């Protein structure tokens, strides 16, 4: 599906990509991880045909640079930082749908599923939306068409837990016929979403490994927490995860998306001194968040 052969990129004698080669098959979900300056963004821009480079990059056997319109028509992209576009939301959706030969209604439907009512904000400039709203809209534009490849740079970073869960469900619906590349600084942010990890450092691939998939992307976990005593800081954190206080700030209960478990556990470990019990159990996906 995606093939990179000896791809190198120099910026004023500084080698940002150093003979990178890899093959990605249809249906693979890759975590592209690495620290700042590792070469992740440059690699993504080469994949999108935005950078010139040495070596070959092909998607489905075609060059994303030479055959932009046909190749990028099947590639959805969600950037890490939303572009500061001044145009109204409606115009952005219509433009994206028109050039991608999609129906704007598909984009609006996905945005609605993510909890964003686009009809209320059609006339509002894109750059005036909140961070979460922008992210939801960009995800809706990427998913609101027929794509074979999804390239996402920290796509869920600005989403609330409920929207994250819906986002994971949307990805789960495309598992078999879409290749996904998810870039992140940290593996724990994306580990549960992927089945392959590629780590980059100094422009080279330093790790390329498979990940065992035991849990579905759409899985939900019921979580119970017991604290030593009530605490305002952890209460705020748990409220952010939409947990319910069951007994005077000591007993907490909520739902966590399967792919979000590692991230959730990472968050609560900050308060490990207050935790006396933590319990996670998989429940049916139909259980709603409280």
């Amino acid at each position, binding site marked *: 599906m995606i093939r990179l052969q000896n791809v190198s990129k120099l910026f004023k004698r500084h080698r940002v990509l150093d003979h990178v080669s890899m093959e990605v098959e249809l249906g693979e979900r890759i975590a592209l991880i690495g620290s700042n300056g590792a070469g992740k963004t440059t690699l993504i*821009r080469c994949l*999108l045909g*935005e*950078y*010139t480079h040495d070596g070959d990059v092909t998607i489905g056997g075609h060059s994303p640079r030479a055959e*932009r*319109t*046909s*190749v*990028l*028509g099947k*590639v959805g*992209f969600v*950037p890490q*930082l*939303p*572009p*500061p*576009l*001044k*145009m*109204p939301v409606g*115009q952005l959706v219509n*433009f*994206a749908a*028109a*050039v*991608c030969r999609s129906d704007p209604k598909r984009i609006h439907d996905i945005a609605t599923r993510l909890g964003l009512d686009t009809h209320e904000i059609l006339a509002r*400039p894109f750059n005036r939306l909140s961070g979460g709203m922008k992210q939801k809209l*960009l995800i809706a534009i990427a998913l609101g068409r027929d794509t074979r490849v999804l*390239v996402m740079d920290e796509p869920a970073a600005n989403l609330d837990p409920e929207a994250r869960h819906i986002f994971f469900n949307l990805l789960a619906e495309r598992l078999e016929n879409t290749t996904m590349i998810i870039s992140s600084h940290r593996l724990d942010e994306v580990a549960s979403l992927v089945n392959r990890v590629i780590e980059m450092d100094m422009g080279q691939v330093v790790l390329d490994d498979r990940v065992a998939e035991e849990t579905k992307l759409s899985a939900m976990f019921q979580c119970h927490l017991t604290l030593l005593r009530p605490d305002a800081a952890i209460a705020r954190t748990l409220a952010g995860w939409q947990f319910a206080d069951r007994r005077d700030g000591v007993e907490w209960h909520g739902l966590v998306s399967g792919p979000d478990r590692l991230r959730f556990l990472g968050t609560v470990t900050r308060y490990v001194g207050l935790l006396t019990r933590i319990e996670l159990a998989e429940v049916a996906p139909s259980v709603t968040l409280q």
Partner: protein
Amino acid sequence: MNTLLLTAKLDIVESLRARWFLIYSLVFGGIVALLFAFGLTESRVLGFIGLSRLLVTYIQLTMAILPVFVLITTVRSVAGDREAGVFEYLLSLPVSLSAWFWGKIVGRYVTIFLPVFVAMLGAVVWSLIQGIEVPWGMFFYYTALLAAMAWCFLGIGMLISTLARSTDVAQGAAFMVWLTMLLFLDLILLGVMIQGHVAPEVAVGVALANPLQVFRTAALAMFDPQLIVLGPSAYVILDLFGAAGYQIYALIYPVLIGSLCALAGYLTFRRSDLP
């Protein structure tokens, strides 16, 4: 709708919401309003009175302001968009590079030409309402001159935007280009060249190659057909082109410069890193 027109429409919508467009429109609308307010239509210079007098003053002011305005706003917004990640996102969509680049030029052209033209048209409409005679020949020629001038500097601005990788460099380069053209206007550098015994043909050649001077001379020719103000160089120009020939040259040459610069910009853009 085809992708080029979609991109043009997108650029127009983006520009209409930008602060530079508001200031730009206010400046040209304000010039016309001020010229009316100060009773320019009632004053007389070189036999010009009424709307002709206003149009002559308007074109002179526009020639001083429009080039630098177009250059700076074009390079600022294009290079700024690239730095801010707008290109990274919009060019990840399946838009051909030719549709993107030329669509952006078309959109930008509409936004820079319309305020200048609408201000002048407004003056004409007001004159018709007030019963002031409208010099239609002058109005149409000045409209064509403004259209050519806007295209010329837009093309140069787009070339600078594709060559410069940052807003600061692009802005600096645009300012230098404008300053160079300004220095080669007859009253400044050409005077020095003639004093320094440079061959008059070279001096006139430089003047004819400088788009700013070409516009200036063309605007002068509308109320001074013999170009007496220019002195001896007028003989060379009029012998070479004739009065009508020069008017046509003043439209074709800047359009050619703008088109060549835009084409060079496109070829550079197509071969370079996009964001």
